[in-house]
């Protein structure tokens, strides 16, 4: 992954982090790595409004920019109560 960023930076190419429809950790990781490694980052944010979001306002851009956390790991703690309430239920599994 670092090799890709190195080549992209050397060629002044953009490094883009992809979107995550459910805004989970799989979306946060490339967001933070792109912020750290890319010279010209750009983050794809799927344009939709989520009814529930375990990361709250961290998923919402302000004036076209997403805020970055400066804590270790993901830097943001998900709302575990919300996470649990959205768990795949037995009723849904039977469908």
């Amino acid at each position: 992954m670092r090799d890709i960023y190195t080549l992209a930076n050397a060629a002044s190419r953009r490094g883009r982090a992809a979107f995550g429809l459910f805004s989970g950790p799989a979306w946060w990781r490339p967001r933070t790595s792109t912020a750290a490694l890319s010279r010209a980052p750009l983050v794809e944010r799927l344009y939709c409004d989520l009814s529930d979001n375990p990361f709250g306002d961290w998923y919402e851009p302000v004036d076209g920019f997403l805020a970055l956390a400066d804590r270790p790991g993901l830097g943001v703690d998900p709302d575990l109560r919300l996470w649990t309430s959205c768990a795949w239920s037995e009723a849904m599994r039977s469908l």
Partner: protein
Amino acid sequence: MGHPRKAATCRSTNCSAGRRRRLPAYASLLKYAIPTWWRASREALGRGYKDLKVHETGRAEITVAGQAAAAERPQRLMVDVNAPWVLQEAWVEAAALRELELKNGSRSRWWPPEDFRRRRGVRASGVPVAIGEERAHATDRFLPRLIRPSAPWTTSSRALQKIGGIS
């Protein structure tokens, strides 16, 4: 008290970004009918997004998207068509896309996306090209051709950056 901003260049990645507090994001619009596209694009711009990406295949829809974007600011449009074209079609469509002055490339414009001869030909047409939805992985024979400096792409997306195992 905030952290002091670092401006040093990272030797390993040649990145001089320093410590970022925020990242520019673009609105990745869904596939709409044209009237809805106008509304959605204006709404996204009203929310502060500076860049838009559309998921459209038809030239009419892409052109309308480009016109709407250009009415606000030039060069703020990306197109993701999800690989619907063969080489000849991609060349024809590239000519139309060039007039829209795409900011950052259209992604997955031909099939198969691993066809580097086609990618080079379309890139040479003057339209920025993004990369990242290929099948390549760490042990793939395509990988060396993807990452070499002369590879014909202008933007890498996550599927390429995650080569190496972290995702």
